[in-house]
């Protein structure tokens, strides 16, 4: 075996092994540099894996040479590759753009520990994407969650502490529910490997433990993914976390839970439980719809830009859940595309917020009035990413909204009401974004000072590359499309039209 065969394992090992080294550095700048290099290396590995998936495919990796289903296996398909790109990309964006902001938020003495926790969170999230069995997914999920709690609570805002406590309680309930579900499945099938589970479930089909397991797993993961109304931990956690941490977690942590949800509900249950698609659809679509509409409406009434974007995230999770709940090939494609495009848009938006807070010191609307005239470059990037969030043609958001609407129209009977809900919610998104844009360009700065004060050039370049990526993937969406297509095919195994 050469090194290229070990890519799936390296994806987890590189950040996990760098974390203790970073802690040993004892210097804020060196620790940041080490974490950034490890994160870049992970991003490189994710790109190599993506190329391999789109080419000949990545063979199943047997950890330590123990063959599955007895050994631990790592699987990388189109969906995993998409998640890996998201997670490592968001981490790199957060670290590269967050240097100045984190230097202000984190004590220099504690900084090495903080970057260590960041890398452990990255390792956990990558681990979820590559793991081929249900229990490893649980362990990686808890590794990443515990590290994420530390990251959120690391800043100077004391409200982050009560927010993270709530997140810890709800996150642990979600993970424990998931574990109970896995236990029921293990009881009936004697296996934890996803592929093996899908085969063996056929023998115990429609028994009560399996249906209960499906319920526990779906609810547990919906808690982790912040599907409305299980989202109550999310807005405060995103708002009071250090800005760079928000860039990282808002772009990927809830999407990883959706990834596991897709893997379980479509990879494992769908082919086996007869009424699964009906049950799942009936459960998830009303929740997704209320999330899309209510969370967008709540976002309009926020006075803090981070909180507004956090509620917008809850609404966007609703779109992804709606697409996934359709239980069709087109729906799953749309769900994966929207995961990718929303992460791109939200990452850019939170990066712009980071720049605003860096120069003005606060994320409240009253403080940011007139910011568009003072920081024109950053504000322009914010507008581009905002257009992508709304779904304007020419941006990445349009591609996934288009796929979502096509998928919804394929539903006999309720296609039209669903499309109307999607369009209404997009209009609500225009309203809440316009509120900020208007304030930023036409509002009067609190101290009447309209002099230019841009962030340093490297950060501005990064913000603009992220904003341009939103346009690039809107005009040339081949990469996410190919990954979503390949991921959907593996998930369904040709079961759905």
């Amino acid at each position, binding site marked *: 075996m050469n090194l290229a065969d070990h890519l799936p394992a390296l994806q987890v090992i590189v950040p996990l092994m760098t974390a203790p080294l970073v802690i040993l550095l004892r210097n804020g700048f060196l620790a940041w540099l080490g974490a950034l290099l490890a994160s870049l290396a992970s991003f490189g590995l994710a790109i190599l894996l993506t190329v391999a998936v789109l080419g000949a495919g990545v063979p199943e990796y047997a950890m330590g040479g123990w063959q599955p289903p007895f050994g631990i296996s790592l699987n990388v398909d189109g969906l995993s590759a998409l998640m890996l790109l998201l997670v490592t990309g968001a981490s790199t964006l957060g670290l590269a753009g967050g240097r100045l902001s984190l230097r202000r938020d984190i004590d220099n003495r504690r900084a090495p520990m903080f970057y260590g926790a960041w890398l452990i969170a990255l390792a956990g999230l990558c681990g979820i994407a590559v793991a081929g069995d249900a*229990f490893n997914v649980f*362990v990686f999920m808890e590794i990443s969650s515990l590290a994420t709690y530390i990251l959120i609570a690391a800043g100077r805002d004391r409200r982050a502490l009560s927010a993270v406590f709530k997140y810890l*309680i709800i996150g642990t309930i979600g993970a*424990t529910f998931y574990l109970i579900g896995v236990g029921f499945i293990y009881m009936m099938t004697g296996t934890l490997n996803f592929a093996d589970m899908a085969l063996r479930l056929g023998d115990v089909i429609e028994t009560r433990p399996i249906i209960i397991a499906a319920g526990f797993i779906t609810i547990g993961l919906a808690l982790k993914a912040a599907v409305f109304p299980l989202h109550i931990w999310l807005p405060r956690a995103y708002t009071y976390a250090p800005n760079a941490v928000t860039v990282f977690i808002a772009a990927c942590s809830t999407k990883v839970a959706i990834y596991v949800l897709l893997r379980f509900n479509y990879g494992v249950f769908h082919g086996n439980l007869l009424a699964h698609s009906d049950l799942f659809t009936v459960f998830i679509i009303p929740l997704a719809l209320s999330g899309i509409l209510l969370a967008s409406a709540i976002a309009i009434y926020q006075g803090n830009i981070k909180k507004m974007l956090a509620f917008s995230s809850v609404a966007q999770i609703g779109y992804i859940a709606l697409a996934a709940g359709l239980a069709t090939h087109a729906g799953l494609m749309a769900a994966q595309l929207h995961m990718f495009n929303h992460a791109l848009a939200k990452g850019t938006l939170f990066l712009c917020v980071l720049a605003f807070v860096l120069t003005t010191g606060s994320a409240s609307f009253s403080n940011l009035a007139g910011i568009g005239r003072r920081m024109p470059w950053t504000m322009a990037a914010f507008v581009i990413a905002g257009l992508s969030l709304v779904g304007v043609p020419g941006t990445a958001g349009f591609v996934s909204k288009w796929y979502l609407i096509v998928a919804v129209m394929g539903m006999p009977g309720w296609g039209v009401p669903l499309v109307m809900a999607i369009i209404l919610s997009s209009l609500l998104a225009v309203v809440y974004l316009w509120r900020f844009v208007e304030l930023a360009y036409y509002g009067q700065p609190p101290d009447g000072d309209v002099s230019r004060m841009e962030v340093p050039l490297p950060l501005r370049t990064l913000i603009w590359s992220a904003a341009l990526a939103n346009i690039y993937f809107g005009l040339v969406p081949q990469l996410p499309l190919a990954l979503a297509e390949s991921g959907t095919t593996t998930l369904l195994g040709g079961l759905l039209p």
Partner: protein
Amino acid sequence: MKLLGLFNYWVFAVLLMIGLYALISKQNLVKKIMALAIFQSAVFLFFITMSRVDEGTAPIIQAGVANQIFSNPLPQVLILTAIVVGISTTALGLAIVVRLHEEYGTVEDDEILAMDRES
């Protein structure tokens, strides 16, 4: 007899509900952490019970003993990992409670919420 045979599963369900109830109803953050520990312990019990095989003993191969029935060791190993996760969660939760107490001077959820609203 069937009821007694499922005794452990009843205890699992009852413990799980005690934990969940206390998580929702208690305002004291330390009590919430205790409830979380009960909630997780219930799941440990569930896995351990499921691994038991009638007449089975600890899965250790001994020289000269053949045809021995063993309990399934895998769930026990899984739970060993889950216990570690549970301890880490409890430790981190308590650390956050300590920080909360430093910042707010109280460990009651409603009082902290009231202070957050004022600021």
